[in-house]
Each structure stands twice: as C-alpha cells, then as structure tokens.
C-alpha cells in the first residue's frame, strides 16, 4: 500500500468516515430506494433510505434526550429487525458504541458482557430479552435505561427506567429543535478511527472478548469486499443470522450502507425459509450447516415422491454434478451435455433453486466451518455461485475469499483485497489488513498476544498456502493440532469434518492428543436419522433412545470406518483414524456450554464434562453408565442418565511412506 493510499484512508473512503455519514449519502443520493423491508402482519413493509434516515434521526434525538453520552456503550439484543439495525446507527450517530448481543444467550452470559463493556443503555426486542436484562441489572452498577421495541406484556413493569422504543422516537421528534444541533455536532465529529461497533467473540475457550472495530475497519472491509464481488445498490439480502455476529454486521450494515442495497428481515425465525423464497435475495450468506439442512430436507421429500419424479430428480442431478460446476466456471462443455443441462434447468434445477429461494442469487458464501464436498458441489451444480471465505471477527470478516471461477471445496481462497497473509513456522496463519481490529476491549494482554506492533494478527488456525494456486488451506485450530503419543500429527477437526459430512452425523468430537490412538463422540442428526427410523418403522421417543438403537450404531460404525479408510490415505494424518467411538446420549448444546453460540465445539469443556466417557473409550470397556446435567430452555437444570455402548471401528493399515515436505 502506497503513501497516497494511506493518506486517503485517513480521510475515509470517498470522504465518508462513519456509518451515519454513509446513511446521509444514501438518503440524499437515492432516498427513494428501499433500505429495509420487514414482513409484518403477513405483508412486506418497507422503508426507503430517506425514511430510514428520519427514523434513525428520531431515535438518535430520543437517545440524546435520555442522556446518552459520547463513548457510552449501548447493548442491542434481539432478532434481526429494522428497528434494531436503526438502533445501532442511532447509537453511532450520538457518538455511542453499539454492542449487539446474542439473543439466545442466557441471563448470566448477558451479565458478563453488559458488565464488561459497562453498558448504560440497552435496546431490546421484546419482553423475553427485557426480562433477562432486568434479571441481572441489579449487579450492573453502570446500567441505567432499558428500551424495548415490542410493548407486548410490558405494561405491568415498573417504567421508571424502562421505555418503549416508539416513545423514545416520539420524544426525539418533539425535542428536535432542542437537540438537533447537538446531534449534528456529534455526527460530524466522528472520525475514521472512532469505534464503529464492539462485538463479543463467542470464544471456544474462556470468557468472551470484546473486539473493537473502528469505522475504518468496517468501511474499508465493506468497500473492498463489495468491489470484489461487484455488489450494487439493486442487490438484496435476507438478514437472519445473529446480529451479534460480525458477518451480519458487515453484510447488513457495512456492505448494505456502502452499496445502498436493501436488507430484508424475516417475519419470525420460523418463517425464514418462506421469507427467503419470497424475497429471492441476490447475495446470500449461510453457514455450511444451513446448506446441509436444506439438502437433507430436500432428500427426505424426494424419498417420499413418486417413482417418476424420483427418477427425474436422480437422473438430472447426476448430470448436474457432472457438468454443472464446469458450466458455472465457464469451462468447455459439450453441446449435448449443455442441452441436457438446459432441459434439467427447466425440469429440476430451476424449481429446486426457486424452492430454496436461490433463483436470483448471484453470489452466495459459506464460512465458519468446513463444508462437505458433496454439499458444496450439489449447490454449485445447480448453477448457484456458492463460494467459501475465511474470516473472523478480528478481521472484520475477510481474510481470504474465493474469486469467481476459482472455487473449490477444500480451500478457502486467496487473500481478500488489501489483506496480507503470512504463515508462521508452526503453521499458524497471520494476516494484516485495513479491517484488522483495533484491540480487545479492556484486555491489553490478549491484544498483545494476538496482534503485534506491526499489525500482524494471529488467527489461531493452522494452514498453508498451496504453491501452484496461491489458495489458503486451513487444517485446524492451531492449538487443537497436537501430537499423538507416537509423535504423529493429531488434527481432530480434519477427522470431525469428514465425519460430519455424513447426513446422519450432526456433530463429532475426536480425542487423541498425547494418546496412542484416536476415539470419538458422535451426535446423530435427528432429522436425518429420525426420517430413516420412520421409514423403517423403528419407534423412538427421544433423541437418547434413537441414539442408542443398535441399527443406528451399526450405520454410524460404517460411516466411521469409511472415514478411517479415507484418513488412512493421508500420509500426515493417517494416525488420526478413530479406533473406538460412542454416540452421545444428548445433543451438544450451547446452553450447556458445550458449543459456542455460533455452534463451534468447545473441545476442552466437553472433554472435562464427559471425562467418564473419555476414560471408558480408552480403558476397553464395552459400555459405560453416565449421568449428565442439562439446562432446559428456561434455565432449569435436569439430569439425563444413560448406559452407552462403545464400539470398536475397523482401522486401516498406515502406508509407510517417506514424509513429503509440505
């Protein structure tokens, strides 16, 4: 990056230094274009950019009226709704810092975050979220006012420090004369280095950390990524991923405000599929699990379809797998194949895309976890430009992305525009970019550990750059990569991902660091296995019962052995074959602390919690009795008791071969 560029960066992108500034530009330049849509009372309601600016202004004035100071932290909790997006921008407009929280977090988790950032204000969606904040607010000394959007059920609450969203806006409008100069002053004062947002990382280990992202981080990341994928004003997205997650902030605020495209909010979490179908976004993001689920649902429906339809589907999907990705990448494909694909487009692919709400998708991304090659290819063969990216909160999402035409399921792409990448000697991936975070809030120690003075940030992931293509490949979390007793490489995630690619397996946890062999916990996928059980007249009352069914164990055993066969092919990782496994009696759950809120496995916590099971996996016993505490949705605790069968899986001989230098 040259000196000229740096000077330009200090001024902001095209002179725009904050999200409120972008809002103002959008409202002035194309005020009549839609900015937000939300389905309510069965109808899509929409707001133009000009209307959005007015709504946000009213709220910002109301916040001033309420006494929000510059530098205050404003917690925002709830599902994706225009009002809550406005809340973030309104907070920024008055010089405060929005802190979105995961809406499914339990009260104690919220207490930690609210306490850590010292939030004085919280804007929440409804009674459910309000109750959680009220439950913990006595222990939060700085906390003052709570604003709620949906007034339902709130009437009987003590309203001395409780306000309805629309009332705050009304008060703001009423006091416009009085507060407008102050609002303007604060808005204009915002610089490129002021904090744009603070996002708490879900943290696979320890307490969540507050990642401070500046206006520069967000706007630069949004700008370069929008250019990379040619995003434009006419695009639209469906905002359904948690607002506390950096991806949603970049897509629904960063890129949306930079490009001026429309953010659509579903009616309710359960109506997401239907709303997706109605909106037909052009730009779409989903975790791998989503793409898996949709295929599982589709497969189940096709199993129930008539013989002809099933034949039609199978025939054309086989053809799509053969030529679809090639056509998408613009590679040469024969005339007959093209014709057949066109026919399939009319009969099968078009309808499937339409049902999935993907008809208009121009760019779709998946990230967060590795995606199964079959799943990835399935969507691409339908002609959907599904790509992978690799990112993290600290990078304002983008570290590497796959350019159009260079898409593969086993890499995560080339460095995103403006990002430099370095691989350390131990294989850990480092990056430096305009999007790289400022610091961890009130945690200089962690900041030092992660980001060096030259701006290089450690990702915590181990990987390597493919020499011929320049694509990055991620192996595993750097700290999870270990050694087995005999010194061979142990990369649990590599094996877990292979296991998870089977539709029947939802989650897997592989153990083996420092041991002579690997073992695994398995979670079955209740949708897929449940459907199988229904088809075969196997009655079951609960997850636990189905998980313990001998035929299920048999099936999973086959999957494990297939994985072992494939792992045995890899010279470096052939020691990671799973010798013994069990199917867990409960689904791993974020409420029990076993997964993060973004559904990543917390390996260490699981290992400690199910210590008795791990021991049994290694001591050769054939079954093990266990009791586990679980947390119900309302916070109550209960116990699950079970006797689990432990199975031995067939392993394949390791081919002795000279280690090739990687």
């Amino acid at each position, binding site marked *: 990056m040259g000196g000229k560029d740096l000077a330009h960066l200090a001024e902001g992108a095209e002179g725009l230094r904050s999200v409120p500034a972008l809002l103002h530009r959008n409202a002035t330049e194309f005020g009549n274009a839609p900015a937000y849509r939300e389905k309510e009372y069965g109808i899509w309601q929409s707001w133009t950019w000009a209307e959005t600016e007015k709504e946000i202004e009213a709220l910002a004035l109301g916040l001033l009226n309420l006494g929000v100071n510059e530098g205050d932290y404003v917690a925002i909790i709830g599902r994706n709704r225009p009002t809550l997006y406005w809340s973030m921008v309104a907070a920024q407009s008055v010089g405060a810092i929005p802190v979105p929280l995961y809406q499914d977090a339990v009260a104690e988790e919220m207490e930690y975050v609210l306490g850590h950032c010292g939030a004085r204000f919280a804007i929440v969606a409804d009674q459910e979220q309000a109750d959680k904040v009220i439950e913990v607010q006595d222990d939060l000394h700085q906390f003052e006012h709570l604003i709620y959007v949906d007034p339902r059920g709130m009437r009987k609450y003590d309203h001395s420090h409780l306000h309805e969203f629309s009332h705050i806006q009304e008060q703001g409008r009423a006091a416009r004369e009085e507060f407008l100069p102050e609002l303007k002053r604060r808005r204009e004062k915002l610089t490129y280095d002021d904090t744009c947002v603070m996002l708490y990382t879900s943290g696979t280990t320890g307490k969540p950390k507050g990642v401070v992202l500046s206006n520069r981080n967000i706007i630069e990341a949004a700008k370069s990524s929008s250019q990379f994928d040619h995003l434009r004003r006419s695009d639209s997205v469906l905002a359904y991923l948690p607002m506390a997650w950096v991806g949603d902030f970049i897509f629904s605020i960063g890129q949306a405000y930079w490009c001026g495209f429309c953010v659509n909010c579903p009616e*309710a979490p359960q109506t997401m599929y239907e709303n997706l179908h109605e909106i037909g976004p052009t730009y779409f993001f989903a975790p791998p699990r989503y793409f898996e689920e949709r295929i599982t649902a589709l497969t189940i429906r096709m199993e129930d379809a008539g013989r002809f339809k099933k034949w039609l589907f199978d025939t054309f999907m086989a053809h799509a797998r053969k030529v679809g990705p090639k056509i998408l990448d613009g590679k040469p494909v024969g005339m007959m194949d093209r014709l057949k694909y066109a026919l399939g487009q009319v009969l099968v692919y078009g309808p499937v895309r339409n049902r999935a709400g993907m008809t208009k998708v121009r760019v779709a991304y998946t990230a967060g976890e590795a995606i199964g090659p079959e799943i990835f290819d399935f969507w691409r063969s339908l002609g959907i430009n599904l790509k992978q990216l690799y990112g993290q909160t600290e990078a304002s999402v983008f570290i590497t992305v796959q350019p159009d035409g260079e898409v593969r399921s086993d890499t995560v792409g080339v460095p995103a525009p403006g990002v430099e990448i370095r691989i350390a000697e131990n294989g850990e991936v480092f990056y430096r970019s305009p999007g790289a975070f400022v610091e961890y809030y009130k945690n200089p120690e962690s900041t030092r550990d992660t980001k060096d003075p030259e701006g290089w940030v450690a990702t915590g992931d181990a990987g390597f750059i493919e020499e011929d293509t320049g694509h990055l490949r991620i192996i595993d979390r750097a700290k999870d990569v270990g050694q087995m007793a005999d010194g061979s490489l142990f990369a649990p995630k590599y094996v877990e991902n292979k296991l998870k690619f089977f539709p029947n397996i939802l989650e897997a946890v592989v153990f083996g660091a420092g041991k002579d062999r690997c073992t695994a916990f398995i979670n079955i996928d209740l949708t897929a296995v449940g459907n199988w059980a229904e088809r075969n007249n196997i009655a079951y009352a609960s997850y636990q019962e189905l998980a313990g069914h001998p035929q299920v164990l048999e099936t999973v055993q086959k999957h494990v052995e297939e994985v072992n066969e494939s792992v045995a092919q890899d010279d470096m990782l052939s020691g990671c074959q799973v010798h013994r496994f069990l199917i867990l009696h409960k689904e791993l759950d974020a409420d029990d602390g076993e997964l993060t809120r973004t559904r990543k496995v917390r390996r260490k916590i699981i290992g400690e919690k199910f210590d008795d099971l791990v021991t049994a996996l290694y001591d050769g016993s054939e079954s093990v009795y266990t009791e586990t505490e679980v947390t119900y949705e309302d916070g109550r605790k209960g116990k699950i008791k079970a006797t689990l069968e432990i199975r031995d899986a067939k392993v394949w001989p390791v081919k002795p071969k000279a280690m090739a230098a990687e």
Partner: protein
Amino acid sequence: MKDTEGYVTADGRQIGGVLMEMKNITLKFGGVTAISDISFDVHEGEIRAIIGPNGAGKSSMLNIISGFYTPTVGEVWYKGEKRPQMKPYEVARMGVARTFQNIALFEGMTVLDNVMTGRLTHMKASIASQALWWGRARNEEMENREIVEKVIDFLEIQAIRKTPVGRLPYGLKKRVELARALAAEPSILLLDEPMAGMNVEEKEDMSRFILDVNDEFGTTICLIEHDMGVVMDLSDRVVVMDYGKKIGDGTPDEVRNNQDVIDAYLGVPH
C-alpha cells in the same frame, strides 16, 4: 348481588364490574340433573376458572354460557340485561367466543382460513358481492384480514399461516383454535380445557398467551381446566363444581383452603 363494583387483584390489576351473571342455573337431561341451582358471576377483565372432577358439569355450564344449551331453570345475565333464549350464533354475535375441549377446526383448511372464520359474525356482505370480490365484500375481507393478521402475530403462528390445520401437531391446533376465538374480538372468551393433553412446554406457552390476551386486550376469560397448578396460577377467582353443585367460589387461595373442596376434589391429605 354482592360486589357489583370492581375489585383489585393480588397482582394489582383493576377488575371491572359484573359482565356476566349466572342465576340459579339448573340443567336437566331427562331424569339426569347435570347442574343444579348454581349461581356465580364473571367480572369484566378477570380470569375466571371453573374446576371440578370429571362429570361435575363444567362443560355443560360453558355450553349454557355459549348458548348451546338452554338452562331448564335459571337466568343468564349479560352486560346488565337478562339474556333471552338465543341460538349459539346469536350469542357469538354478542361477543362470546369459545374454544372446544376436542378441537373443532376445519382440518382441510389453512390456519389463515380457519382464523378468518372467526370473523364471520362481523361480515355482512352479500353472497353475490363475495362471489364477485367486489365492493363491500372486498373491503370487508381486507379489514378482517388485518385483524386476523394481528391475532396471528400475537399468537406467533406466522410460520404456519398457510399450512392446512390437519397437518399440525396437537398443541398448535389448540393455539389455532384460540386464534379463531380471538379473531372474533370477543368481550368474553370461553376456554374449554385449553391445556388438555399438552406437555409442560406447551402448557407454559398457552398460559403465557392466556395471560397476554387478558392483559393486552382486556378480554374477560372464563376457562375450564384440570391442571390444578395452571388454574391456581392463572385465575383470579375459581368456581368449584362437584356432581352438578357448586361447592366453592373465591380466590385460588380461598378455594385451596376450603375444606369441602379439599375433601371433594383435591383429596384429603394423608
């Protein structure tokens, strides 16, 4: 009678005056006396429960309120007036809506259409107008749809709006029934065992909805329920029936400590 004024509940809600009063109701089927000489009142804005063992005559009482049965002896007073003998649909027009113990929805119709039927008493357009989707019918349909959508939103059943009721699980059907009753914008809502056959989570949801309906719309609710925990938590006042007779009437605490009730219904502690 006693307190025709309102009263204030334990949790501080102001309850209005008497909305409905049952005076000396007796109901006989041939030689069988289902209900004998029962009197009680329902105040505006309260949640009133009728409890009692099987065959106590609770559902019969609800059927009298909704106009399905005509009492052999006795009077029903509603909004300060004695109610003449009426057909159930006439009673419905006066603002009395109900749900049924064994769900009575149109299985083949969607949730939306089922809930729309709750608006039937409010529609006045002619068949011709409705068939042509013209003029009054069109405006009416839109106005009514708006109310129905608010109910759908309130009861959080947006995701199943277009699903045929026959495909829904039991707990959701119960909720759809409640939605249909609410769509009628009733002054008094009769719930016949709203929690029967539900699991704990479904019961919690339903309880919350009942409280929210009462709180948000100020709807007076009269319910029959077997689950004692639910009844005691939800209701402001309880009528206890046994073998067609009233054996107790008062707040949950009063009823709980009433020796007759304990003996007859809750069982004598061992």
